[in-house]
């Protein structure tokens, strides 16, 4: 099978996702009154994405599987949020950009990593 370099696209999307994560982490720190204790865990998530991006582009099997798992968990989290929105105390706001970054983007990474695994 001809190599289509799906891993390069997966790499780009993972890097972008990490960038979005940094913005979200900034928001958490600002809302919590500038308390830096809220930065490490979100930034750790970004570092995880950047690390996976680096190894995915080298077509490492473990990284491709890990990326699929991480993005699968992200999609499961989105579904959980949507179901939780049915509770009377909380709602869930679905919007266009949210669907793009929290559903389409992880979905695309999963497909791209799966294709790269199939090509190996």
């Amino acid at each position: 099978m001809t190599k289509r370099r799906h891993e390069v696209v997966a790499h780009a999307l993972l890097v972008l996702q990490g960038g979005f994560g940094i913005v979200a982490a900034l928001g958490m720190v600002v809302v919590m009154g500038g308390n830096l204790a809220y930065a490490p865990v979100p930034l750790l998530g970004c570092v995880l994405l950047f690390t996976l991006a680096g190894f995915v582009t080298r077509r490492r099997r473990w990284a491709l599987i890990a990326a699929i798992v991480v993005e699968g968990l992200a999609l499961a989290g989105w579904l959980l949020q949507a179901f939780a929105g049915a509770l009377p105390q909380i709602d869930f706001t679905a919007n266009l950009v949210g669907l793009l970054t929290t559903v389409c983007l992880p979905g695309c990474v999963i497909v791209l990593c799966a294709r790269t695994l199939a090509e190996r």
Partner: protein
Amino acid sequence: MSDFGIGIAPAHAAALGCALVTPLLAVLGWRIVQARARLGFPLARRLRTGWAAADAPVRWAVWLLLLTGAVHLGLPLGHVDGAPLAVGFLTSGVGCGWLALRAILGRRWRGAAVALVTAMLVAYTVSVINGEEVDQVGLAAAVVELALLTLAIVPARPRRRSLANIGAVGLAVLFGSATWAVFVAGHGDGHHGGPFLARAQAGVVLRPDPPPATPDPQRAAALLAERTKAATVRYRDPAVARAAGFAATGRPEGLQVHFESKANQRDDRIVDPERPEMLVYAIEGGRALLLGVVFQMPVAGARGPAVGGTATRWHAHNLCFGLLPPGFGAVSPYGTCPFLTVSITTAEMMHVWVVDPPEGPYADGLNDAWVRTILRDGRRSA
């Protein structure tokens, strides 16, 4: 879930429509190309051969260029802001199409794509700073453009991949932070009651004003403020509030310490000045001052009554909730939450301030410096 449409500015609906029909038009167009290639047309044959030889990054870039181009070609249909802007949109749209064509034909496209996308992002940021409301179509287009930019710069120079990654991440952070800052400034700028609908939905969710519940909404708003002021006199002292079942939701000191009453939240009484769901205090340096109350709807997603028309506007917060450590963040303009947090949207709420702030009793928030001054001066809250 019902807030999806609110985030889309009417001026951008046509552009979104163009983006949605792009895949269909692209498939139809591709069938025409293939038919012409079979008839021996040189350009069609080169396009067919080029696409067959293209790898995934190029194919993705072509799709992203087509989507971006379609959005920009559709923007003049909704934006009637003058000929120069329309020409700018059309030029960028055509530019994207031209670059998609070059990418399929195997010609250089990355440098021009980086320049074009950067120019489009800068232009959008400038227009947002100059007053255009950030909305979901603008942000979604920006996400597509950032993905295109990342694809264009990351694989081009494998030896400088780290530098390219930093560049892509830096631009995403810069653009996100800038639009968020403008959004927050716009929200705090007294847009309540106007056409501002917080369409970025980055921490705040606003819904369009329902019809006024009374023939004289201004009088109703003033009456509610007066009744709230009178009813909360007894809560001037936080100790009295605690004895009545209110408890601080976070740190017990600060310029806006919220005390909530679980009993009042569960009593199904809406906008009752005698039983507010929350009290807001300024507590600092041994002094305490009751600033106002928060009325909250008992069920999330339910619309608050239009007690005083546009003056008494309700809002909800879409937040990111995490446990490591326990706390809240705001959903970012990219619609994302930090790692290991979940997105939730609160029930609608409305502030009523009892300390006569310059912005009026229904202001979005109070100026910290002003609160410090009245706390120091020992102003009575009612």
